């Protein structure tokens, strides 16, 4: 599927509006977005085929040497001088506030013209194909065990076209991503829910992976009916890649978003060049760091994608910035400026965040635990960049006794504690790594963007409750 024909037809309008606003602002950019999404779902009783979360519109960003100004609108057709006047009037401020604006450094607008394209296979599948696949998956899950009360299969994919125009920069990009979900509602001694999620840029890979997991998700549900609460305490823990990613993302990643540095909201600001994790730990973030759901070519500020090494051999080496925070800190932006949609502000945000693999074998890691738990599947997490306290919830854990996984499941499991204590406790890292591209991340309690996280298995010591 090619770049949005709608946005393609707006290149001239964007350039003209940049010129019209350029009379008043030294820096003007326009981001045009055309994101289209499809969602196909089936359960035992209902089906749905419809558009998912998408967007189509423009956001104009301006800087007058002091504050940033943004205006979000649906269309930029028509008289550009009149539109420029409307935009200037809309973002004007009360005089008392105009007197207390920031004074950022200069904004880089190095000339660049490039069109980026990553192909998908989404057009190989009709709506009918995808619905039939979902219905087959539901049937397969339902037939595995009569205690399956309901089963859900969901296929979702989006294509993203973005156009970025400044006085010197004309960029476009088009890419896509797909996710698949299996959910089982299971009766028996007690009612439980089990899930399995896949992410890839090819629907063919998603469908194959989901077909391979219909039995395991029902089996997991059966085990969860016997799960008990965990006895709160401090344990040796082996994480699966999902929980490793949760640690990377929630425990640490939010704390190195550099708009938090500007606001003095991040302890990490004072820890650059210091050990914050065990010396065997290496962590990255970046749209160009791996290939997953947040692998774009340029960010919503028109900055090319990076691979940022956040932690090198346990030492904090870099943070993640958007255009505004980098300008205030006098740094080069790292390509992490992201918006919930064209209607929302750009912030410094994570993309694909993960630990590098190590040298240990998973079986050796499990064998090294006298009594502890292996934790699986992210449920949710909450950041605290200022004070580095964490709360990360795993869907379930399996008890390890004398170096062996038992049949004892615990659910749910909440990890909490002080971030550096957790990261410095990393004592083993597996040689296999997986980045999981199915997450959504908010900043505080809003501004949702798609993110990936993951890495290898980690052995840590942490408080579980």
């Amino acid at each position: 599927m090619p770049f949005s024909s709608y946005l393609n037809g707006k290149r001239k309008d964007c350039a003209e509006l940049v010129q019209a606003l350029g009379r008043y602002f030294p820096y003007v950019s326009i981001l045009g977005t055309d994101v289209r999404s499809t969602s196909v779902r089936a359960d035992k009783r209902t089906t749905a085929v419809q558009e998912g979360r998408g967007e189509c519109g423009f956001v104009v960003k301006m800087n007058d040497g002091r504050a940033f100004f943004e205006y979000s609108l649906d269309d930029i057709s028509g008289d550009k001088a009149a539109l420029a006047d409307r935009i200037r009037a809309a973002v004007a401020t009360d005089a008392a506030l105009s007197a207390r604006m920031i004074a950022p450094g200069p904004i880089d607008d190095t000339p660049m013209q490039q069109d980026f394209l990553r192909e998908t296979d989404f057009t190989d599948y009709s709506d009918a194909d995808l619905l039939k696949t979902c219905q087959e998956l539901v049937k397969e899950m339902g037939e595995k065990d009569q205690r399956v009360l309901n089963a859900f299969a969901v296929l979702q994919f989006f294509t993203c076209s973005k156009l970025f125009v400044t006085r010197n920069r004309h960029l476009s990009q088009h890419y896509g991503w797909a996710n698949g979900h299996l959910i089982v509602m299971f009766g028996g001694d007690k009612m439980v829910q089990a899930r399995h999620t896949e992410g890839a840029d090819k629907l063919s890979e998603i469908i194959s992976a989901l077909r391979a997991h219909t039995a395991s998700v029902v089996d997991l549900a059966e085990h969860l009916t016997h799960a008990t609460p965990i006895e709160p305490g401090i344990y040796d823990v082996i994480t699966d890649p999902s929980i490793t990613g949760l640690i990377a993302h929630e425990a640490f990643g939010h704390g190195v978003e550099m708009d938090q540095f500007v606001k003095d909201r991040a302890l990490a600001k004072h820890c650059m060049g210091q050990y914050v994790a065990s010396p065997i730990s290496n962590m990255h973030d970046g749209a160009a760091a791996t290939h997953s759901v947040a692998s774009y070519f340029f960010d919503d500020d028109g900055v090319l994608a990076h691979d940022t090494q956040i932690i090198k051999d346990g030492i904090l080496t870099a943070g993640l910035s958007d255009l505004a925070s980098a300008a205030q800190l006098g740094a080069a932006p790292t390509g992490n400026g992201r918006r919930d949609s064209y209607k929302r502000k750009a912030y410094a945000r994570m993309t694909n965040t993960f630990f590098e693999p190590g040298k240990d074998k998973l079986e050796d890691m499990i064998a090294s635990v006298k009594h502890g738990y292996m934790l699986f599947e992210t449920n949710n997490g909450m950041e605290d960049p200022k004070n580095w306290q964490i709360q990360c919830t795993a869907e379930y854990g399996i008890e390890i006794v004398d170096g062996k996984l038992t049949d004892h499941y615990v659910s749910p499991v909440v990890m909490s504690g002080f971030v550096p204590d957790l990261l410095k406790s990393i004592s083993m890292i597996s040689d296999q790594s997986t980045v999981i591209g199915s997450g959504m991340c908010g900043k505080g309690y809003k501004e949702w963007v798609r993110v990936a996280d993951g890495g290898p298995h980690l052995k840590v010591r942490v408080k579980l409750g």
Partner: protein
Amino acid sequence: MTNIIELLKKNGGISAWRVSETATKSYELFFVHRQLETVRATDTLDTMVTVYVDHDGCRGDSTFAVSAALTDAEAEEKIDAAVRRAGLVSNPPYALPEGGTLRAELPTNMQDEDPKALGRKIADAVFAADSVPGGSINACEIFLYRDTLHVRNSGGVDKTQVTHRVMIEAIPTFTDEKQSVELYEDYRFTVFDPGKITAEIARKMAEVRDRVIAEKPQTPLKTRVLLRPHEIRGMCEELSWALSYNAVYSHATPFHLGDDLQEGGDGDRLTLTMRGVVEGSEDSAFFDEDGTALTDTCVIDKGVVKNNHGSSRYGQYLNVERPSGIMNCLELNAGTVSEAELKSAPYLECVSLSGLQMDLFSDYIGGEIRLAYWFDGRETRPVTGITMSGKLSDVMKHLRLSRETVVDGAYQGPALLLMPEMTVL
């Protein structure tokens, strides 16, 4: 594009349709410390169209977005595609709400205010609380919205609701020679009262000052835990989700009509009502996304599941005669004990949690506590660095609710909820 409804009427494959438009104008201010970093404004229109196609005794539907820039030909193409998609979907039939016109506006005193002037007044009210030595507001975001929701369908529904709302996100911070700590403040309103804004931020400033001196208490301990309205609302939302028509029809809830959620308990009995409107709440509404008029519905009566609630479609699937419509506001009836009585014995009062974790399936409730007040029977002191957890079923059996009630966002109900015998680590 000429008119999406005219185009829908022209398409012979459509059995019914719904058009939902949300026009949003916003004015937004972003402060770094006291300095203005970004000024934003938006002027957008979201149009979502659902087409319904009846076939083979079933009803299919498909929803799509219409952007302002679509040509007639492009819009017709999208309609055709949605008709084809709806034709693939074979769900049990259901009726759309019929008839009813309404133009309503949530009560507000902000409708005639110039956004720029109002934004400055709100900023002044926020920073008026930034007067504590050692304290500061390190970041503040102010969002002023005017939303106009317009729902129409082929059955004659034509309803409009206008909402003026403000959201303030502020980060009160306190710094001493040893450390710097912060709390998160999310304050929303539909009626502007600068005194209330300053008082709310000042309350948070006082709490963050306590966080800097807070220490981890001796653990583990078993104690009574008090929750404040924000977390009580979270508990109620979890329960209310599990009592929705959709959850029941999809077998996604452990609860059934008639279940006693507090069986064998000796605490206050829960009476929870879904409400369309709670005064002052931005979540208040007169109709839902289908245009269904909202009917306040008691879902839990004295601990027993009395009704389900939710969308017209799933209500019909459960043979509910008059589905309630989708409501976001909650009212929890007052309890039997005073706040003073609840605080007469040792307790841990949660001020700031990372997030209340509640799992109906795993029978779990808990969370990481960033700031709480610990009363050991003799003195009260701020504590931090702890987590609490317990069995949800035990909490339900023995919880106590304060007689005093408050309105907090979409929640109206007791100011305090007591959970007995929680494990704190």
